[in-house]
């Protein structure tokens, strides 16, 4: 129905006129934070959802969705957040946009503490922090036209854009590659990819400084995913946006991010520049996560030795494991991991990791070499593929130079058997 609009989307010249205006406008607004400086700072952020039971609704426990995380987002960059479901990445996104009230910790935006601002206190801030949601179907009101949806931020903020709301909305539509004439259409008249563009236009309406995108492309088809990823890329370059992109797809995150935070059970286990993270991951979990991604290359299938297969499931965030939370599934775990929680420290410039025995770096607790007996049993050494296979694999991925050396030794590593004693289905 609106093929033309989608066609325009892919070619940037078609939208450059609108976008240029946007950039000019962005520049006139006060930009307090220069690119590269800290825009958002989070310290010790926690969110515990209480579990209440009984007649008196007494609190009997808590889901520790986010359990003490620290990071900062610099102006102009894209921070990617990855992790498996239940690791707290979406909760984190909702905390920094203050859609949820943090249990503890501090969120600073442009140096201002916004942790406990009320609704009215947050209102001026809302202009600067916007969100793009995962599901383009449920995040648009079916009874409102596109014009109303994208124009809503102006109404709520009492902003009268130059030339009127309608003109501005139409400009935004063309910026995101939709036909401005579709102003009066309803969400159901658009395809998934187009709806996601509408969500993006709404997020951009007030010239935000920070855009938090929670799984912006996971509901879309592969070919449409690429369109939206490219659009986000273009908008960042043209409007100087800062993104926090939350996703579970590691290849998408690598494509869009400058820095990446890996979360596991409410904690950041590794935070590093894209290149360092993907070339030489330090946390065993990061490594396992990346090796689990299926590679679209049938020739690499035989090189199975590259895969680290984690056994079992993520433990419940109601009673996370003591010490390092990953120790129940980690093949490198030792005594210290069960007792002492490793701090997130910078082991290499631009690469922070929370692990006692990191990969690709010096061991943080070398004296503690006694493997848990169970873990020792669980580690299986699998014969490595033939030399030819390895050579082919190495050739295909220049990134894995150091990695293959490590992977030759320990391959199908599995978790400490303890994890099976742990009630794995406590999530219900």
């Amino acid at each position, binding site marked *: 129905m609106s*093929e033309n609009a*989608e*066609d325009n*989307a*892919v070619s940037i010249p078609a939208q450059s006129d609108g976008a240029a205006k946007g950039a000019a406008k962005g520049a006139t607004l006060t930009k307090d934070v220069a690119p590269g400086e800290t825009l958002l700072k989070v310290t010790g952020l926690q969110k515990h959802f209480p579990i209440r039971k009984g007649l008196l609704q007494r609190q009997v426990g808590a889901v520790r969705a986010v359990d003490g995380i620290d990071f900062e987002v610099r102006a102009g960059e894209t921070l990617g957040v990855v992790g*498996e*479901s239940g690791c707290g990445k979406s909760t984190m996104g909702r905390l920094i946009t203050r859609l949820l009230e943090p249990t503890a910790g501090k969120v600073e935006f442009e140096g201002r503490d916004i942790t406990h601002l009320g609704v009215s206190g947050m209102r001026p801030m809302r202009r600067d922090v916007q969100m793009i949601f995962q599901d383009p179907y449920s995040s648009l009101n079916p009874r409102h036209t596109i014009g109303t949806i994208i124009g809503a931020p102006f109404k709520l903020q009492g902003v009268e854009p130059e030339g009127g709301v309608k003109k501005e909305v139409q400009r935004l539509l063309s910026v995101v590659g939709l036909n401005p004439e579709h102003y009066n259409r309803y969400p159901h008249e658009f*395809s*998934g*990819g*187009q709806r996601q563009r509408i969500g993006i236009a709404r997020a951009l309406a007030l010239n935000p400084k920070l855009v938090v995108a929670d799984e912006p492309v996971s509901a879309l*088809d*592969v*070919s*449409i*995913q*690429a*369109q939206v*990823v*490219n659009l986000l*890329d273009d908008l960042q370059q043209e409007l100087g946006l800062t993104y926090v992109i939350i996703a*579970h797809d*590691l*290849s*998408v995150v*690598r*494509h869009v991010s400058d820095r990446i935070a890996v979360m596991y059970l409410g904690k950041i286990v590794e935070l590093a520049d*894209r290149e360092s993270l*993907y070339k030489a991951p330090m946390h065993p979990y990061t490594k*396992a*996560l*990346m*090796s*689990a*991604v*299926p*590679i*679209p*290359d*049938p*020739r*690499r*299938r035989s090189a199975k030795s590259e*895969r680290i*297969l*984690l*056994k*079992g*499931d*993520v433990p419940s965030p109601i009673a996370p494991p003591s010490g390092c939370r990953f120790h129940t599934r980690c093949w490198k775990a030792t005594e210290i991991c069960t007792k002492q929680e490793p701090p997130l420290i910078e082991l290499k410039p631009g690469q922070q990791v929370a692990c006692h025995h990191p990969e690709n770096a010096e061991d943080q607790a070398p004296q503690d070499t006694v493997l848990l007996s169970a873990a020792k049993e669980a580690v299986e050494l699998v014969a490595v593929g033939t030399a030819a296979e390895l050579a082919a694999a190495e050739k*295909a*991925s*220049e*990134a894995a130079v150091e990695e293959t050396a490590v992977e030759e030794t320990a391959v199908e590593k599995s978790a400490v058997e303890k994890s*099976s004693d742990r009630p*794995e*289905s406590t*999530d*219900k």
Partner: protein
Amino acid sequence: MTDLSKSSGAAMTEPVVSDSPAPTAFLEVRDLKVHFPTDDGLVKSVDGLSFTLEKGKTLGIVGESGSGKSVTSLGIMGLHTAGQYGKRKARISGEIWLDGTELLSADPDHVRKLRGREMAMIFQDPLSALHPYYTIGQQIVEAYRIHHDVDKKTAKRRAVEMLDRVGIPQPDKRVDNYPHEFSGGMRQRAMIAMSLVNNPELLIADEPTTALDVTVQAQILDLIRDLQKEFGSAVIIITHDLGVVAELSDDILVMYGGRCIERGPAEKVFYEPRHPYTWGLLGSMPRLDRDQQERLIPVKGSPPSLINIPSGCAFNPRCPYADVPKDNVTRTVRPELSEVGSQHWAACHMTQEERERIWTEEIAPKL
């Protein structure tokens, strides 16, 4: 078709005339059409699909949402026409030969006996495919006892054995759990246990890992691969994730707008694709195994509506090369599959030389 069993098990054949004799392949689908009449018009979900599959081999069916991949799998299982109102809902034509039996014209009771025993299915969302009121064990026992005349005790032993085989810890206790007591990955394992309990010879996995996290996905893919080796079944894996097909499939069939636009051995489809849509899929995907691409190369536009499939080549409105063939042929004539290599077929109007040149000069370097 001569070296069919040698080169690749799930070898492809050209659409065959319908009165041809029973095939030799384990599974052969000929000119399958599944149409759904709706108020808005006829939805041509699958519009002439043919392929063959041998035992012990895996066929990957790839496509975007609405390309007809799931409808194909339900069609093979005979689930469109099952039930009281089935005949009114779907119009199915063509032939599906499973081990020498034609399923579409067969007696529904006979198909019912085959379903679950000869052919089984793993669904995308295990939570909605498992019954919440019954324990995992009861459901597996039911599936087993329908096809085997055994008492409950034996069947339950079999259920425990299957749960153990798919890697569920403490299977003797877990067998009495309800689906909600399992995590997502374990539910999918339980589903797999249920579908394999009768040792089916054909296993259809419809997006088996889409609802799962990557680490769990890796476990499940590994499991499917191992089980296939063990049982020697034929597997059809349906997915939109090219990574998953590359991991598992011997052959790949790419669907677009209800038709197959390219099929062939996995290696060929990934390294010498001969259809612009396959190029588009490969270009749209960020890849972990390559250096960072500057930009993705998306396919413009969006997938076609199955009610108004574009005339000519269904992909022509989105195809950057639609004007390469002369006389506007892409918009008027529907291209048929033609052989572009050994066991490799593609449906495109461009000449093979043109496609080879575009792939090697324009597309491959950018990927």
